[in-house]
Every structure is written in C-alpha cells, then in structure tokens.
C-alpha cells in the first residue's frame, strides 16, 4: 500500500458519511435500544467494565469526572412541577453513538479517531496524543480520557485482579482517549470466522457485551446492511433513516406514532444508535 494509492483512492479509506451514492458494502454495525424495556439496572455498564478492561478510578477521581464507563445510565426526571416523581424515572443508556459524521473525527489532529469501513467510529490508541479535542467536540459526552496510568495506579488492578483483564482488549495507558468500540474485538472474531466459512456474519452471531447481559433484552445490535438483521428491521419499521438529519415521519401527523428516534439528530451527526421512546400508560 503506497502513499499514491492512499491518495488516489482516498475516498475508499476515508469513510465519509452520509453517502447515498456510496452505501456501506458488507457491514454497517448499528444498535437500537428500547427505553420502554430498559429498567436502568446498570448490568450493561458493569458488563462493559468486565469486557473492555475499564479501570475503576475511585471516589476522588470520579468526583473529578474521570470515570470510565463507556456505557452509562443517564437518569432523568420529568415531574413537571408535581410533588412526586409519580411516573418514575427516564433511564437512558448512553454510549458512543458511532456517528456516521462524527464531530470527534474531524478535529483529531493525528487521525487517531476515524471511521472504519464497517461504520464504526474507531479509536487508535497508539496514534492518540491526548489533545482531547474529540472529547470537547462530542455532543454525547461519550469519550473518556486516561488522566492517569491506571495499570500502575494503586488498587486499580492489584495482583491478582489483573488476571481478569481481557487479553483481547488493550489496557490503555496514560494520555490516551478511549470510548465504546461496539466490542470491536468480538466483531473482529465474528468477521474472521465468517470469512473462513465464506459468508458474512449472521444476525445474532455476534453480540456486544452490554447486549448479551441485558436482562430485559432492551439492546439489539447487528448489521444494518443485512436484510435479515433484527436491528435493520427495527430501523426500517421505525422509519429512521441513517443518512437523514430530519426524519420524514416526524413531520407527518399520524394517529399511531412511531417510537424510534436518535439523540440530537439535528446536529447532523447521523448516529448509529436508535432509541425507542419510553411509554407510560395514560389510564392510571
């Protein structure tokens, strides 16, 4: 691979989206999260710690905003001035939205964060110089910076806790940015297995750690290109189009509404995560 090749075929390497004329070829990883099923139990978050070698930073660093939960549960109240939160809370699992047109990618001075051919927003740790511009530019606050060298910090992974570290995932050192990868280590294995078998990854063949653990099955994940994939069917049914910053369905006045939406869509980030609105019964 020469530099000439790289420059001549730049558009093949620089995945630019949205791109109606250049749709995704084999894979486009995407997610949908049903907020009416999500109970806010935090299992996804802990599973992510286990899978992705996230450091436990402790109370003091947590207070400084240094926590590393790649998927976190945001909790909102909608009391409307009532005395009690009598319609419960609104829980929302927030993770990297793997935007097709990611604000973090354009500002990285060293190209450490960029888009893969599978539609992932990837973070190349050994390129990252720690400018943290990406973090400043992320509207979802889904990026986490290693302010300390956690592998050598006391009580983060004391012997023998370090034996739990997942060998498929790098342990990040001081000064690099990190975030949700859609469990790229699992995707890589699944793709490799599928390629050996001469096919594409089947729906359900690979699960992210958060999806696998979720007690209510609120998270779906899969390949949007695959017409059989549940996630693609969900997006289609909800009439949420990846490459639109305004969904046509939102303009229509219909009796039965659709629940699918993407967060801060108007910023033209084209997120790969669709949420389904929480529901509340009106009869009570």
């Amino acid at each position, binding site marked *: 691979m020469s530099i000439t090749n790289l420059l001549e075929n730049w558009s093949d390497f620089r995945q630019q989206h949205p791109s109606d004329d250049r749709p995704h070829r084999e894979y486009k990883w995407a997610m949908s999260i049903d907020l009416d*099923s999500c109970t806010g139990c935090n299992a996804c978050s802990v599973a992510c710690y286990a899978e992705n070698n996230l450091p436990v930073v402790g109370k003091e660093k947590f207070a400084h905003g240094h926590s590393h939960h790649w998927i976190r549960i945001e909790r909102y109240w909608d009391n409307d001035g009532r005395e009690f939160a009598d319609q419960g809370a609104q829980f929302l699992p927030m993770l990297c939205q793997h935007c097709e047109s990611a604000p973090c990618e354009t500002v990285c001075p060293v190209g450490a964060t960029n888009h893969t051919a599978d539609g992932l927003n990837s973070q190349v740790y050994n390129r990252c110089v720690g400018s943290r511009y990406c973090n400043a530019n992320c509207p979802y606050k889904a990026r986490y910076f290693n302010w300390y060298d956690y592998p050598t910090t006391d009580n983060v992974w004391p012997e023998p806790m370090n034996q739990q570290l997942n060998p498929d995932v790098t342990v990040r050192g001081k000064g690099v940015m990190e975030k949700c990868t859609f469990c790229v280590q699992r995707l890589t294995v699944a793709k490799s297995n599928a390629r050996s078998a001469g096919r594409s990854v089947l729906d359900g063949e690979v699960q992210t750690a958060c999806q696998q653990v979720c007690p209510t099955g609120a998270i779906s994940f899969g390949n949007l290109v695959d017409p059989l994939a549940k996630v693609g069917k969900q997006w289609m*049914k909800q009439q949420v189009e990846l490459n639109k910053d305004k969904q046509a369905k939102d303009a229509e006045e219909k009796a039965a509404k659709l629940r699918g939406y993407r967060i801060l869509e108007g910023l033209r980030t084209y997120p790969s995560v669709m949420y389904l609105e929480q529901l509340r019964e009106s009869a009570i």
Partner: protein
Amino acid sequence: MIENSFNRRGFLKVLGWGGATVALSGCGNTSVEDGKEFVTSYVQTADYIIPSIGTYFNSTCAQCDAGCGIMGRVREGRVLKLEGNPKSSINNGKMCGLGQAGVQAHYNPDRIREPLLRNGDKGEAITWEKALGLINEKVGGVKAENIAFLTGGISGHVKALLKNYLDALGSGHHYVYEAVAPSIMRAANKKAYGTEMPRLRLDKAKVIVSFGADFLGAWISPVHFSQQYARFRKADNGERGVLVQVESKMTLTGANADRWLAIRPGTEGILALGLINALAAAGLSVPEDVAAVVREYTTDRVSKDTGVSTEHIGRLVALLKERSPSLVIAGSAAEGYAHGSQNATAIALLNQVLGNVGKTVEAPSSIPFPQMAPATGNRFALQSLNDNMAQDKVKVLFSYGVNPVFTAPASMKLKENLKKVPFKVVFAHYMDETALEADLVLPLNSALEDWATVMPEYVAEGAQLNIQQPLMEKLYPGTLGVGDILLALLKQRRPDEYKGYEDFYSYLRSAMVSNKGALGGSATDDDTFWDATLSHGVVKLAGTPVNMSGNPSAKGLVVPGPFTEDSAYPFHLIPAVSASLRDGRNANEPWLQESPDPLTTIVWDSWVEMHPKTAAKLGVVEGDIVEVASKSGAIKAQVYVFTGIHPDVISVPLGNGHEALGRYAKGVGVNAFKILDSVFDKETGELAMHETRVKVSKAGQRVVIVKDEGPAGGNQMGRKIAVRMSSNKVNLSEEV
C-alpha cells in the same frame, strides 16, 4: 469489498510471520519485554484448549441466592468474564451487574489465603491439619447441644453434608439466617396460598400492582423477573402491561412504574383492603366474610389514611376491574412493620379476590430431593442463636456464608454475646466483621474455584439442580471448599462412612452418579451422564406441582390504623436494599462501588434520601451532612434530595459502612443496619426492618456529593434526550 483495502493475508505477507506475531499479540500488562515473565508454549495442551481462544464452562452464580446459571469464559487457564447460561430457565443467558462482578470476588486481592488461629489480637497462619484437628478437639470437648452452626441460605449436597455432620455430632442446632430475606412474605404466602414461594407470572399479567416489591432490583430473582417484565411490557400480541408501584421510597421497580404512588409508611394493608371494598362496589364478586371486613374501608377513609388520592384509587380500581388477569405482589416495604404479616395477608387477599390465583400466581413444583431443598433463613433464627449465646448455651459456633456482626442491629448486642462463645470458627472469603471476632478462620475457595450443587428457592419451571464447578485452578493453595471442609470434619466423626471419598468432588460425583436415574440420566453410562451434567450446568428435574389452597378468607385479619406521630422521632427510616450491594457481602467488589445507584447516581458512599419538603423543613440541602438518630444509635451521612420518597420518610441504603472486609469496602459510607430498633413482626417474630423511627439534625459540614448525574440533576433542559410518550399513541403489535 474495497479493492485496495488490505486483507489479513496480505497484511501477514507484508509483515512476515515474525512481525505479525508481535503485532497480533496483546499489549496489555504483560511484562515479557522486561524479562519478568517467560512465555511457555503448550507442548501438550488439552484437546479443547487452543491458546488465545476462550472456552466456556457452565456453573452457577453465587453472588446472591437467585441461582442464575452462568458460563465463564476461560482462556489460558484464567476465567475472564461471566455470561449467563442460556440453558438455565432462571436467567436464560442473561445476568445482572452483581453477577458480572463475580470475577472480582474471585480475583479479589483481599481474600484470605490460609487458616488463621487467634493469638491475642492477631491471626496466626496454621496448617489445615492443625485447624481441623483443633475443631475435632473442641467439638469433642463439649456437649452436642452446645454446638451451633450458623449459615446463610444453603441447599444441595453441601446442605446434606452439613446435616450429616450435625447428626454425627448429635446436635441439631442449625440456624439459617438471611439479613434481607422475604421471610414475612413466605409466611403470609404459606397462609394464603398454601406455599411459601408461589410462581409469579408477570408475563401473563395485564396489570401489576406491587406493594414495594423491587422485583427488577433486589427481590428474590431479579434477572428472571426482568425477563418476564420485558414480555409483560411488550407481549407478542402487542399488548402492554401496566405497572403500578405503591411504596414510601422509590425502588428501581418503582422508577419503571407507569404510576408510582407514594404511600404513608405502613398503610399498605389499608390500601389493599380499600381496593377490595371499591372493587366489590364496582361489581366484583367478593366472598361475604371478606366483604364484611373491608366494608369500613371506604375510599375517602383509605385516601385519608394512606395519602393516596381518591382519584388514583378510583383509576386503579377501574384498571384492575377492566384488565384481567392482574398480579398483586407484596414486597419488603409492605412487610417491614410490626403488622407486616397483616399487610402481606391483606395484599394476598386482594390477589385472591381478583381471581389471580392459578392464573398469574402459579403453584411451584415439589422438590424431588427434600434433603437438598433450600433451607431459607430469617432473622428470627439469629435472634434465637443470640439468646442462646447470651445464656452461655453455645460453646462452639460455626459460621458460614453470613456476616451477622455487620448485619445485626446494635440493639441485639450480638458482638458482645459472641465474646461469650469460647470457640468460634468462621468460614470466610474475606476478613469481614464476623471473621475478626473468630478464634479460627477457615479460608474458602471462591465460588469460581469450588464444587457444589445449588437448588434455588425460586425456579421458573419444574425443579432444577444447579451445578457449581471450578472455572479455573485455585488461586491459592491454602483455601478449601466448604464441601471439602465438611467432608474432612465428617471423616473425623464417621470415618467408615466417608473414608472412601478422597475429596468433595469424588463425593459429589458419586452422589450424583448413583442417583442418575432420578436426575434424568438412566439411559446413559456414568461418565456420559456426569460429563453432560457438567456441560449443561443445570439438571432439570421433573417435579409435580404442589397443591395450592386458594380460598380467600379474611378470618382473623385486622390491619391497624396509620401510625401515630412521634414528636421525638418524627421520621420513618427505610433501610434500602440496593441491587448491587444487598446485605453488604459484595461491598468489596470495586465495580459495584463504582456502579452508580440507579436512582441517585451516587457512587462510593452512603446517603440520606429525603423529599424536598422534608429538606426544606429541616433546613438542609444536597450534600449537607446530617445525623440520623434512632433510639438505638446514630449515623452521619450526606443528604440527597429527590421526589421519589414520601415526606414522612428518610431512607439510607444498606450494604456499605464496613469496618473490615477489604480495601474497597472499609470506611466507605455508613451501616444503617446498626441503628435499627428491635421491633418485631407480631406474627412471625421477624425483625420489622421499616419500623425504626428517627430524628434528623444538621451536623455542620457540607460536601459535594460524588455522583454521575450532571449539575442539572436529571433535568433535560428542554432537549430531547430521553423521550417518553403515552402508550395509547403507539401500536406495539406492529413493531419488530
């Protein structure tokens, strides 16, 4: 594929094999580069081990008593991550955060690594031979009735061995104690339905009214109920069930309710009877004796007593009338009072009147092997042990799977009474508060290193025997499994019977194999049966449904009126059971400490929850340190203000406030168990966990609360981040 993109083969060609090996090996914490470790290749690997490929082994989660099936990913001899076992009907491949942290219990740096014998204030490492010899000598030197064995919930072959050991000693003193068990509900269910733990079918219900049962968070079998909840919310036909939660302090389940009703503490039974009365008036057929009892509970009176508006009572009645079957559940919040049994009975009565028994309340299966059936515990057992210790009736005490010094209220004086026991043996993973009081501490294998069978109290279908098997070699040579210890102790007493078993594994295998007919393996040979059993991780047993008695009767049911005010102690204290910390035994697992509480988003600490009105009355704001004082003691913690709590109530979470246990737990937060008053449920004698009255006073300082929510405190400031709509606007049946 992109034509010019490099594939793996091309990549390897470019780099050459040597380079590729470096590039493909993990970076991680390996110190191969420094020469501190040597890379040794597997010259002769086991058949199924391929370096760098994870293998999954099935086992059973031991983080709580729900007994979920797990599969551990094992790579190069280390267990890395746990996933749910899809073959277990309890959790069907799913897990909770608490279960995920099981690996941190296993790899915990604060585990005890060898037997310790008290020498003054210190523990001195001794050999197992000496430790077991010492136990033999001590139990031989006292009368059998002076030996007591205290355990948590226990089942399976370990329970059978324990019983045999106690029989061999000639003592029947086995106390089963669970700090936060639903024991009052068990008793009330037994009375109402004829079985302690009926099967609840949330998925079949169209309306669920839960009186403080946190079935999504910390109640009985949360992962199982969460799965049912998902089907309840989105049935195959697109119908969406309605959840109404009635409680004084919002639980995780309450936070997911369509309507959360803040009720005056302790008046849950009144509301249940009021609902029966209103349903009868609306045309539901109610037996005459029941109707007579509930007649005086008019909606106006009930609304006045409970603080729930007549409007909401009316809507709830209409909902229950229209949508059937429904399901009414009594949880710990309704039971935690001196009249807890009455509350639970009234709530069960509502369920019966609604005709839910047999529809959403089903009969569980009988358990084929009663000697392995789960022994469930309560606080009453701890109270009896405590009384016996106070009267010097206990000379040798064994303690396994419990931490009573941490979980007993200070008013019980348990720690003082323990000092009267001349020889205390504690089986422990950590030096917890109880192990610190021991004369001999026996270090246990972690749950991921140990053999056992587990029969969960709540099983989704049929009966089930779970296998717990080691997922890796022991980390420390000096630890032993509880089964191994019991077997060694039995060999001292009944050598002829047990000398044939080299270790607990051989005992377990032989016990299982000799019963393979009853365990569904009659057609296979021993090895095939055993391998299949280990491979599946669960043995499904045919059980016949037990008989349920379902005649609603209000005989003897008296629900007292609401509490009278106590001007000296104006607030009710609700000790809240959190989904991750439970009774505190898991507090030394850092993932759980750093996992924010779902409602407050607070990490690494305890807090005092109160309603904004209460805070205004007390003149405190978020972060103020207050003293919460009951008649039995006082604790200090930070204030968190939110609207998910009744103004007469303040709530402090349980689980933190350890003085020992380990580096992640010690000194974090305060222990609300300590200040609970000794008030007991009148019928069962259980500690009434919610009866404690407290006063709250400002203690001076103010801190910044360490929490995950932003400064807006859960307000979206008009942005559409988490969006909610009314369920009648959506057609769920058309969704994928």
